[in-house]
């Protein structure tokens, strides 16, 4: 077994002390500047919502009004529904720091004048104060905040990801200093005891994986962080890379020390340019602080990290394909065993872990395995991070203790379904996962319970669907994705997913045939059993679960050409209820992009079914007082309206 040479305890401690003191000094200098501080979330999600414009608006308004305030860019808080998020800390106003949602440029200018200059925080725009106080309700009064448990994302949205001092000042890299004073075996033992399971999807025990690598004698080891994140709708790894890259680096260095590696690689997709930029910057800073390099914290342990930009194929997230891709080959998986821990990059033992897995390491080292086990469930300790999207009020990233039920997550924490609609299903685990119906809302969220229900933790994508979604179409959507992302190597995945997609597409077009359900089931089972890698093995999951829990929808598509969710275009049609249509009103006709709306002899409207493209614009345009446009499925239900205009 490879064992790191015992290190004189004083060396890393003293080295860490030095950078910690320096970071604290800088932090204090920042905090001692009088005047307001404006924290703006500028990760990709914030930027997409206009955070950069918001920042410029603040800068302009501050300059115009000659106000001295510091703008502090931070990462993402995880509250996508509220982007751009701004926290204003204005001590002189007497108010606590305040969380403002949806701060547009106009709002930024208004807040500069009214709050920063005149001291009026404009209550109607406030989400809450970030600390408990007498004046304003605290954000911690809301479930979206107080039911979260932040381990991985604790510092996300709080610190500037481009400034290593802010990470260090909040105890960052102290876990590394502690680890370097211990034996590598002890660290692996700690990770094993914590019960940490890989956050990349399969939930393999991390400590065991590290131990396997350590047991591979003599060979140089490599540490790889898997930041490929290819699931559609999942973006937690990106957010963490953009909001607190150092916590990931710290986990990787500790892993390197524990497994006897000198080399770490972060495999991140090139489609994440901001993440690439920030993590590259973080690595440079860490080198400048001797956290990476020939002599980590002045010890004789050497470790460095490179960034490898992947080209964004979903299959390259699969560990063996990821390795092939880093070696310069086609990103195609290979048969396992041997596992990467035995034979990985260039045949060297390689530890591959997900971004979130590495981000758990420093908290575990700092607070102990026992502490980690107090969070979550016995078999799945710790937290889970989901990007909850779709039909929910408070979409975004949520970090919860494992074991919280789907109901609590969707209805309490994320605010339930908007527009008074009914919950229909939740799709968990992305294209490899499954759709669970309302009966499963009380399922606890952990690796084993989700797998048992037919879904999967996956990497944490969660799409909530309301009554208007069609489960056949959802299955078709995910199959279309996996089919396109198949690397083409093995027969079942290459051709099987294509055949499966053909059948699903046929159903959504109303061309379903008797026997299709059995065919879907048979194909799915064979693809699952026959495929070479996890992509093919899990690709049929959306079909299998929707067949299991929403079979009636499949039957309706096949037998009645009816789409109960009214989502499949070919199976639906619009018509105008003449009793409710207002004579002389032209709104629907005016908005129709294909001139399918005509006027009847009594100056009401009808829709020419041959021309209609079913965009639904007329239904939106029809004033609520008339509410005359109807959507039906099957399309044959449309009454005939004489075209006698």
């Amino acid at each position: 077994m490879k064992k790191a040479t015992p290190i004189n305890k004083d060396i890393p401690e003293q080295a860490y002390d030095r950078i910690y003191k320096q970071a604290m000094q800088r932090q204090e200098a920042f905090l001692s500047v009088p005047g307001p501080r404006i924290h703006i979330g500028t990760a990709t999600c914030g930027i997409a919502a206009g955070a950069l414009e918001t920042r410029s608006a603040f800068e302009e308004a501050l300059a115009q009004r000659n106000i001295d305030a510091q703008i502090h860019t931070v990462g993402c808080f995880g509250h996508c529904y509220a982007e751009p998020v701004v926290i204003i800390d204005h001590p002189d106003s007497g108010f606590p720091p305040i969380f403002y949602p949806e701060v547009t440029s106009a709002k930024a200018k208004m807040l500069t004048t009214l709050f920063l200059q005149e001291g009026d925080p404009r209550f109607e725009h406030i989400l809450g104060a970030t600390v408990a106080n007498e004046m304003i309700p605290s954000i911690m009064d809301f479930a979206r905040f107080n039911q979260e448990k932040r381990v991985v994302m604790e510092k996300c949205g709080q610190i500037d990801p481009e400034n290593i001092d802010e990470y260090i000042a909040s105890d960052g890299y102290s876990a590394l200093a502690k680890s370097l004073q211990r034996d590598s075996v002890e660290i692996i033992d700690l990770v094993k005891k914590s019960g940490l399971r890989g956050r990349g999807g399969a939930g393999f025990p991390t400590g065991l994986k590290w131990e396997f690598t350590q047991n591979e004698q003599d060979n140089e080891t490599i540490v790889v962080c898997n930041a490929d994140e290819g699931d559609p709708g999942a973006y937690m790894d990106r957010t963490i890379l953009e909001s607190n890259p150092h916590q990931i680096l710290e986990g990787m260095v500790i892993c390197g020390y524990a497994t006897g590696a000198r080399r770490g690689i972060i495999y991140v997709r090139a489609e994440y340019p901001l993440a690439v930029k920030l993590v590259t910057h973080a690595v440079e800073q860490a080198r400048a602080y001797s956290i990476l390099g020939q002599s980590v914290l002045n010890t004789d342990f050497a470790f460095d990290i490179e960034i490898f930009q992947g080209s964004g194929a979903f299959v390259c997230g699969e560990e063996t394909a990821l390795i092939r891709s880093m070696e310069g080959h086609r990103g195609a998986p290979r048969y396992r065993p041997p596992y990467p821990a035995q034979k990985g990059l260039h045949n060297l033992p390689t530890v591959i872990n997900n971004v979130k897995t590495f981000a758990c390491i420093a908290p575990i080292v700092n607070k102990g395995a026992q502490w980690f086990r107090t969070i979550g469930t016995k078999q799945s300790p710790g937290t889970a991070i989901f990007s909850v999207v779709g039909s929910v009020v408070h979409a975004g990233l949520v970090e919860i203790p494992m074991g919280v039920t789907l109901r609590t997550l969707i209805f309490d924490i994320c605010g339930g379904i908007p527009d008074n609609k009914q919950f229909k299903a939740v799709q968990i685990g992305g294209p490899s996962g499954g759709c669970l119906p309302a009966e499963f809302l009380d399922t606890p969220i952990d690796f084993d319970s989700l797998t048992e229900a037919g879904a999967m933790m996956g990497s944490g994508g969660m799409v909530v669907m309301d009554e208007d979604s069609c489960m056949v179409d959802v299955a078709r959507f995910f199959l279309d994705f996996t089919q396109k992302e198949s690397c083409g190597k093995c027969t079942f995945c290459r051709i099987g997913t294509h055949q499966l997609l053909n059948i699903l597409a046929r159903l959504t077009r109303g061309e379903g045939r008797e026997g299709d359900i059995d065919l879907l089931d048979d194909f799915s089972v064979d693809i699952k059993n026959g495929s070479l890698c996890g992509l093919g093995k899990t690709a049929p999951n959306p079909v299998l679960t929707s067949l299991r829990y929403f079979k009636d929808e499949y039957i309706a598509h096949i037998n009645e050409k009816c789409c109960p969710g009214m989502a499949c275009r070919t199976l639906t049609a619009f018509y105008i209820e003449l009793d409710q249509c207002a004579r002389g009103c032209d709104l629907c006709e005016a908005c129709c992009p294909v001139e399918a709306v005509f006027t009847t002899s009594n100056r009401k409207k009808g829709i020419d079914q041959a021309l209609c493209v079913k965009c639904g614009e007329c239904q939106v345009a029809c004033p609520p007082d008339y509410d005359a446009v109807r959507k039906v499925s099957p399309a044959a239900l449309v009454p005939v309206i004489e075209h006698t205009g």
Partner: protein
Amino acid sequence: MAKFIVDNKTVEADESITLLRACLENDIYIPNLCWLKGMADAPVSCRLCFVEIEGEEQLTSSCKIKVRDDMVVKTDTPAVRRLQKTAFQLLMSAHEINCKVCPANKKCELQKIARFLKTGLKPKNMNSHLKEISADMPPNPSLDLHVNRCVLCGRCIYTCIQKQGQSQITFAKRGIDTIISFYGAPEVLSATCSECLACVSICPVSAITLT
């Protein structure tokens, strides 16, 4: 030497060889396309050579495991045959079935497997998916590629590397559009390929022919 049982028959083979090879050499046929004797690392991509090994929950790819003493192997259980038939039919759904004009007729690996599995050549319940022939493929002055005959076993690529040190053939595109393609300047291909022809003879389905 390992001594083990396949389909109730005792087989002996050197521990260094794969189960697939041991079976084939002992007249126990297991359908296969992508494996070749001598390969250090089988691609395991055709997904035909499944067997059932006693004590193991899932079916195993026989090209990937080494023989062991006392293993008990079954090559024709219903589960094995089901997966083999589906894999075969999937391959056939992307194969141009026009045996009369095909030089591989009568010695074709696919015809052999169909006979063995007692299944027709034309798959039931599947759409035929043939690829469009794209014009942007690098031409080879000596050889023709028939992408709709090709079953993407990769034997040609392996063989080319063995013969030439570096493959003149590669996989291109991905998913259902995956094809094999020549690789390199036409002059180089012309010089090396017209002499060698190893890929032409190793192809189980005549997807590479002389121009």
